[in-house]
C-alpha cells in the first residue's frame, strides 16, 4: 500500500490527508513538531483572550484520526533524503515514504534587528509563541507594556489579545497607515481611528531600530529611529509578516526559493514530492495572485486539489475569484475580487463610509468597460456565493450597486445601508 507522508498538521496538510482518505485507502501519516492534533491557528488569539480553551480550537475530536486511519506522528523532521525517499528526524529516527507532501507553513519574519532573539521577544504564529506570551505577559503587573512591530493582520490580533488583559500596547507600523500596503486609504484610516479608540498607542510611519536587554537578557525597551525615543516594555511582538518555514529542506535536492517551488499541479522538481499551503511558491502568481499565498483558504484549496492528483486524477491548482476576511478588533472585514490600495490604470474606486466610522465599503471597477472588479467591506457582512457569481458573470458596477442588498449577509433585523450606498454612488457619478 502506498504510504503518503505529510509534514505539517495545519489546514493544508490536514485537508490533503482528509481528501486522500475520502478518495482512497492509502496509508497516511501526518507529522508535526508543534502539536499532537490539528488545531485552528487563526484561533490561537482566542485562547489568550479566554474565549476558548486550546481543545476548543481543535476542529476534530481526538478519536477522529484513528477512526479515519490517519496516523499522527509528533516529531521534528531535520532532513529529507529525496533519493531514497526517507525522512530523518531530530532524534535520528527515520521514516520512508512513497509520496511526500510538504505543508510546513510559515514562520514569523525577523529582519536582523539587534536584540530580536532576546527573552520576551516573540512572533505570534505557533502554539509555542502563545505559551511564550503567556509566560511573559500573563497580566499587566508582570507586563507593564508591550510593543508590537509590524502593522498587519497578526499585529492587530496580538494588540487585541494584549488589550483583553489590559496590558498597554504600543503598536509600531512602518507604513503611514495601518495595513497601508493592502487597504485603500479611506479604509485603512478608519481602522487607524478604531485602533486608537481601543486605547492602543498606534505609531504610524515608524521603524524599529533595536531591542534593548536588561541584565538578565530579557527585553527592557525598544528604540525608534525616527524620533530616537526609547520605549520601556516587557515584551516585543514581531509581526512583520511571515515567510515559508523550509529551512530543513536545504540540501535535499528539492528546489526552493523563498518557498518550495511548485508547478500548477503542486509538484516540486523531485518526483513524488509535493508542497501545499503557506510554504509552497508558484513559479508565477496565478491570475494576479502572489506566488506565495499565506492564507488559510488557499492552503485548504491546495489540499483539496493535491488530494485529487495524489489519488490519480492529476488536477491543476486553480483557485477561483480571490476572497479573504479578517477582523480588526470589533470591525469585520471581507473582500471579494480585487481591490488594491489605489485604482490601477482605467480603474476607479467608489468609497462609502458610514458616519459612525465603523462601516465602509470600497468597490473597484473598470472605467472603460464599467466592469465590477472587487469589493472590500467593513462592518457589513456580504455573501461569498453572490459575489463569486457576479464576478464570474462579469457584472457591471452599476448592476452590483443596484443589487447590493442581495449580497447582504448581516444578521436579521440589522440596519441596512444599501440605499444610502446607492445614493452616494449615484451622487458621485453626477459630480464626476
Amino acid at each position, binding site marked *: 500500500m502506498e504510504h503518503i507522508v505529510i509534514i505539517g498538521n495545519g489546514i493544508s496538510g490536514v485537508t490533503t490527508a482528509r481528501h486522500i482518505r475520502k478518495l482512497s485507502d492509502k496509508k497516511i501519516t501526518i507529522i508535526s513538531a508543534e502539536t499532537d492534533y490539528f488545531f485552528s491557528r487563526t484561533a490561537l488569539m482566542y485562547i489568550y483572550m479566554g474565549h476558548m480553551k486550546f481543545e476548543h480550537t481543535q476542529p476534530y475530536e481526538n478519536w477522529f484520526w484513528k477512526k479515519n486511519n490517519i496516523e499522527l506522528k509528533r516529531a521534528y523532521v531535520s532532513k529529507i533524503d529525496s533519493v531514497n525517499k526517507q525522512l530523518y528526524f531530530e532524534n535520528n529516527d527515520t521514516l520512508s515514504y512513497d509520496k511526500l507532501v510538504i505543508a510546513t507553513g510559515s514562520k514569523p519574519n525577523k529582519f536582523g534587528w539587534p536584540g530580536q532573539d532576546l527573552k520576551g521577544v516573540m512572533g505570534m504564529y505557533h502554539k509555542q509563541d502563545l505559551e511564550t506570551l503567556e509566560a511573559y505577559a500573563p*497580566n499587566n503587573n508582570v507586563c507593564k507594556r508591550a510593543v508590537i512591530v509590524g502593522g498587519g493582520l497578526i499585529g492587530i490580533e496580538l494588540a487585541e489579545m494584549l488589550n483583553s488583559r489590559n496590558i498597554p500596547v504600543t503598536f509600531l507600523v512602518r507604513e503611514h497607515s495601518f495595513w497601508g500596503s493592502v487597504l485603500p486609504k479611506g479604509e485603512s484610516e478608519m481602522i487607524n481611528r478604531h485602533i486608537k479608540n481601543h486605547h492602543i498607542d498606534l505609531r504610524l510611519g515608524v521603524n524599529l531600530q533595536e531591542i534593548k536587554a536588561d541584565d538578565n537578557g530579557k527585553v527592557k525597551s525598544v528604540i525608534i529611529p525616527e524620533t530616537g525615543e526609547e520605549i520601556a516594555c516587557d515584551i516585543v511582538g514581531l509581526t512583520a509578516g511571515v515567510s515559508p518555514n523550509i529551512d530543513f529542506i536545504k540540501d535535499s535536492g528539492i528546489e526552493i526559493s523563498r518557498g518550495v517551488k511548485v508547478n500548477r499541479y503542486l509538484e516540486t522538481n523531485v518526483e513524488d514530492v509535493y508542497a501545499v499551503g503557506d510554504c509552497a511558491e508558484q513559479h508565477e502568481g496565478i491570475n494576479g495572485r502572489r506566488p506565495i499565498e499565506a492564507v488559510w483558504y488557499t492552503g485548504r484549496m491546495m489540499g483539496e486539489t493535491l488530494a485529487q492528483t495524489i489519488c490519480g486524477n492529476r488536477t491543476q491548482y486553480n483557485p477561483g475569484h480571490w476572497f479573504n476576511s479578517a477582523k480588526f478588533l470589533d470591525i469585520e472585514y471581507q473582500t471579494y475580487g480585487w481591490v488594491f490600495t489605489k485604482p490601477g490604470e482605467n480603474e476607479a474606486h467608489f468609497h462609502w463610509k458610514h458616519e459612525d466610522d465603523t462601516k465602509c465599503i470600497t468597490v473597484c471597477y473598470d472605467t472603460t468597460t464599467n466592469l465590477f472588479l472587487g469589493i472590500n467591506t467593513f462592518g457589513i457582512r456580504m455573501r461569498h456565493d453572490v459575489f463569486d457569481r457576479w464576478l464570474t458573470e462579469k457584472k457591471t458596477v452599476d448592476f452590483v450597486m443596484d443589487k447590493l442588498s442581495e449580497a447582504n449577509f448581516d444578521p436579521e433585523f440589522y440596519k441596512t445601508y444599501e440605499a444610502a450606498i446607492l445614493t452616494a454612488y449615484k451622487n458621485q457619478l453626477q459630480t464626476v
Partner: protein
Amino acid sequence: MSNKLNHSMSLAKPDAQDISKKQKIALATGIVGLFILTLALLNIDLPNTTVFLALSLSLITLGTVVYSRDAYLTKLEGIKNDGVWFKSISSRGFWGWTLGVVLTAFYIVLYFFSDLLGLGQGVDGTNTGLIALFDPLSQLLSGRNASQWFVYGTLYTVAIAAFGYKFILKYRHNRYQQLRTISVIFFQLGFAYLIPEFMYVMNSDIPYYDLKSVWPLNYYLFQDYHLGEFLNAGNIGIALIIFGILSTLVITPILTYKYGKRWYCSWVCGCGGLAETAGDAFRQLSSKKMSAWKLERWLIHTVLVFSVIMTVAVVSTFLKGSWQDGTFVEATYWLSNKTFLISIGLFLTLIFVGVMLFKKNELGKDARYGAIGYALVILSLFIIYFTGTNGGDIFFINSGTLKSAYGFYIGSIFSGVIGTGFYPILGNRSWCRFGCPMAAILGFQQRMLSKFRITTNGGQCISCGNCSNSCEMGIDVRAYAQKGENIVRSSCVGCGVCSAVCPRGVLKLENGALEGRINPTEVLLGNDVDLMNLVNKK
C-alpha cells in the same frame, strides 16, 4: 483588570482588580437584596414585609443593572467574551460549583419541601418565612396569599428581566439579540406571570394557565384534574382547552415551518428565556462531543415518548368516567375513550407514513429509531385500551402513578433540579437539549419541514471554533461551517449567538426555500469550479 487566574502563592493577591470599584458596589447591592431573602428564609421576622420585599427585589435588580452597565457600556460595542474561560464562575471553577450546589438545593426545597419555605406554616395555615415575604405582592396582584410557585415565578421573572437587560447591553450592536431578549422578557412578565394572576381575579375557577406554555412542555395541561377544572369554569374553560389543543396542533406547526423552532425556544419560552438571560454566562459549558449528541438523541426522544404515553393514558382515564360515592359513573363527553385512542393512533400513523414517504432522506439512519418510537406509542395505545380499568389502571398500574412519576422525574428533577440547578456545570440549556419533549417535537419538524437554517457563507470559515464554543445546545457548528454546509439540526434553538461571535461573518440565521437547504459539500466555494462540481456532484 486582568481576567487571567493568578497562580501566585502570595497571600495578598498581586492583581486583585478583577472588577471595578463600581462593580464591587453593584455586587454588594445585589447581595444585600439576596440577604434580605435569606433572612426571610431563616424565618427571621421582618417588620414590614411590603417594604422589605420591595427593597430586596429592587436591590437585586439595581445591582445587576449597575454591574452590567459598568461591564459593557464602558467598552466599545462588540463581542464581550474576554475571560469567560478564566473566570471561576463560568468555567466550572469554585464559584461555578458553589452556585450549582446552591441552585440545586433551592430547587429541591422548592419542589419537595415547600414547608421549609414557610408555606402554610403559620397560625390557621398562613404563610411564614420566605413565602410570607411575598404575600403582599400576591395580594396586590390576585388578592390571595403567596404560594411557593408565586415566589418562584416572581424571582424567575426578576431574573429574566434583570439579566435580560444585561444581555441586551452585552449585544448592543446586535438587533436580533436585543429583540428576542425583549420578547422573552415580555412573554415571561405578561404571559407566565401577570396574565394568569389577572385571570384568577376575573374567574377564580380557572386553573393557572400560562397561555404561551404549550403541551408537551406544559405536561399537566391535559391532566384529569386540570381538564376537570377547565370544564367547571364554563365557556372560558372550554375555550382555553381548545386554545391548548390548537397551540400544539396548529399554531406551533405553522410557526415552526416558517421560522424554525426558534420562534418558541428563544423568543417565547420561559425555560429558554431564563437560559438565554440568567444562563448566558454558562452557554460555553455544553458538551460538543459526538457522544453527548448521541446521548441527547436517546434521552430527549425517550422523554417525548414517555410524555405522549402518559398524557394519552391520563386523558383516556378521564374520558372513561370517575368514581362518585362508591359507584363508577361513566363519562358522557362528546368524545369517547375509544374514539380518542383511535384518533390519536390515526394521527400518529399519518405523520409516520408521511415522513417515511416524503422525508426519508432527511431522516436517514434515524428512520429505525423513529419506527421504534412510533411502534412503542401505538402498542401502548392498545395496552391502554385493553388493560384500562374503571379504577384508572392502565399497564396494570394506576395512571395517576404514571402521571406523578412523570411529574417527579421529568417535571421536577429533570427540568428544574438538573435543568436549571446544573446551569454552571452542564451549561444553560441541558433541559432544552436532553429533556424537553416540546423541543423534541419542534426539532423533529425543524429538521423535516421548515424554512429555517443557518447559512454558511461560502468558503469563509477558518475553523476557529467560536461558534461551537458558544452553542448552548452543544451543536458542533464548526463541523458544518468548515465544510461549507448549512446547519440544519433539530436541536438548534436559533439563539443566533454563533452568528454573532463568528469573526469572519460566516453564519446567518435565515428562513428560505426548502430546496438546497441541506447542502452537503466536499470542496468549498473559491476553488476550481470544475473540481467543485466533480467532487460535490458525486
